[in-house]
């Protein structure tokens, strides 16, 4: 019995989620959009601040990459 087929043997390919919901710019009124946008930006900014090391130059130096491909 081949157990590998479940990844492909499906007929229910779903496109991405419909254009509604939190952070959605396509649905709802302008007011809702603005509120959602503000919430996204505020939460996002907190996460950004938590992520920054405080010494970005040292971080970049420590993580420098050489040529790829």
């Amino acid at each position, binding site marked *: 019995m081949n157990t*590998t087929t479940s990844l*492909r043997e499906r007929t229910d*390919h779903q496109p991405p989620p419909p254009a509604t919901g939190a952070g959605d710019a396509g649905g709802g009124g302008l007011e809702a959009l603005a509120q959602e946008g503000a919430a996204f930006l505020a939460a996002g900014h907190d996460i950004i601040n938590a992520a*920054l090391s405080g010494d970005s130059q040292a971080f970049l130096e*420590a993580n420098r990459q050489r040529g790829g*491909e």
Partner: protein
Amino acid sequence: MKRRDRIMANRLLGIETEYGFSQNPGGNPEADMGDIGQELINLAMARYPFLPAGQGHGIFLGNGARFYIDCGAHPEFCTPEVDNPWDIVCYTDAGAELLQGLANELAWAQVGPGLRLFRCNVDYLTGATWACHENYGHRANPLGLPRQIVPHLVSRIIYTGAGGLNPFSPGMEFCLSPRVYHLDRVTSTSSTESRGIFHLKDESLSARGWHRLHVLCGDSLCSQLGTWLKAGTTALVVALVDGGFQPGQSVGLQDPVRAMRRFNRDVTLRSTAELLNGRRLTALDLQWHYLRFVQEHLGHPCLPDWAEAVCTAWQEMLERLARGPAGARTRIDWAIKHALYLEHLRHRQVSPDELTAFNEDMRRLRPSADLSDEPAGGFDSARVPAGAGVPVPPGRTIALSNAQRHKLQQLRTELCELEVRFGQLGPQGLFAALDQAGLLQHRLTDVTSERVRQALREPPASGRARLRGRAIQQLHGRGGHLCDWHAVWPESKETLLDLSDPLQQEMPSWTPRPLPARASAPDDIEQRFDFLKSEYERGNFEQAFSSLGEITTSPAWPTPSFVSQYHSMMALVQCRRGFFPAAIASLNARAQTRLNSISSVYEHVAIHRFQGLIPGDDIWEWIRLGDALLDQHPEPESAQAFGFREHKACALLHRGQLDEAKILLRQVLAENGRRRTHPRMYALAAADLGEVYRRLGEPDLARTCLDDAERLQTDAMALGDLSEFTLLNLAKLESASGDVSCFLNRAEAIQLDANNRMGLVRTHILRARLLRRQVDAGETRDRILALREQLPSLHACPLCAKILHRWDDWCAGRTLPEGGDAFWGM
């Protein structure tokens, strides 16, 4: 039946993702990243079913994917071939999960302080770029593809861009895809320099008429939706071309590179680019054109069954983007970054005028590598490039104080840190944290965590990747088998599991291994000579040797002029194969050998140049004769005269007369540089000059020459010279084992493909010295000895004998007591 009616919808696609990586704080700054990368491979081999890659390096996994360490010590995960974009996302994410899991385990095992892995595309400090290549199988004429697909590749960045800063600007110029600044031409053969929007590489890795479109202008993305759209839309455009349609015919761009850069810097998506027909369209217009084209052909047999689902999401994305970046700010990489970075600047109280003044200041101080006639970009979405059909609002020019400029420079550095952290794998990553907080809408409903975990272990359900995965799972642990995209075979090479048909569904039986596939030789004797010369120049010396044998069966054989040509070619082929005595015999066999012309002397010089690992001493007798002839009858225009002087310079180099070699090589390059009539010899001279500079202690000049040689040899497909000399000389210049490994692996892959045993010996010898911690010295020596047994040239080569005799010294990196070159003259 028209061609388009018989085109099948099934085509395979795949993605190769290179990851940046570094050690966590506390790591050993002296640690070799190549060694750490190898630890990842070793751990993967201990945790997952695998077979070693038969050509190149790394391993194939039980899910059909390939995992290896690429240039710059970047771990690279290549998905197995799949037939739909959902599986692309599944396997791409599985690759990220594999790597993060291995890195975690290394940390737990206390192998150093642990690793950080990144999905990034550019390094803002070093100017390096690494990325995410896409592969699309098709049966269309590859020459017809660029015209049809380039406008799509140029304009799709509005949803496939990773977002970030212009890496060549010291200012803060936001762009949709930083990697676009690394693309400087429409088409290219190289993927490591002079990158083009369309990669001309057509290495199918398949039989039955399949080609493989290799796209290298794309970004590595965090958003599942972004990756899905990137693969899905591009696969549909390729499918239409494969079906005989011309989706890009009416939207050909006047200047695709300039158009891509213009689109890239404008987050309002209002910039236009000129078409060949004189119209101007935005990137959105171009994408609408392609979308409508696909929609008009939905249901056509050339399109897959998932085409409609992609079109639905494609249309929704374009509608969102038409409303500006905010329309997609929770869904795709560049729009997420743009929103958050802009918010960060707002919190730091940076005004649009300050930003504009800063960018203009920075441009004045350090002109960007961007097109010089384009204005600086920025974050301000109201400011778009001039000449793009949209007026530039009159910005206020303000003078920045030193304090303001310093603050903005620090902010730029912070944004660069955020750029790196955005794509960091694991929960510490910025994108992952945003996702974890429920702020994003990028996930596909069909790609669950469970499916991703399954994809880590299991191959796709169709195509040859399923068969490869099954074979690997069955053969894993038994030892003695190798794998590649097109086949699995035992090390004895006696049999083969042929997977060259990418769509095959049934497991084939093991069959006796056929001779390597090759183009069929033409019937006409002149064409046969042309064919074998081209094989020789490509470095397929064994193939050229075989073709020479077939020439003697031609009806025109033995016409005297052909006999002479035959012996000349045989001599060159034999010496490159490692059969120097046979080469001498071929020259001696010519009925009328005239030693009063530079062409006949050149042949002798040539075969002595390739006599062993280095030129033989007897070459000087012929060089003296050639010098005398050229004094009497200068022939600056002839290929033989050019080649003679190149070989002479090589002999000078190996005799340690570096200054004389340098002068001669510079002369022949300058003379030929004006005409470029002998590109292969020109490239060989550039490679030799690189080696001269290395020995003179001028590594930068050496690298410049060798880069030039590499580009020319790649373009001219002079793969024998590339693999035996240029790549090996480049490896000698590197100190990081990852870079050394990259050059040696490339050389070895070419040599294995051509069964170039002389080349393989050179590569093995250098690998033992340069990567001594990664190779089994005893095993390598055995391999060299076995090859030497087959090759009379090596049997008689004093340098080969010396290296083998003092093998431990060689592998330990010791110099000779008598001094001389660090590589003993290799």
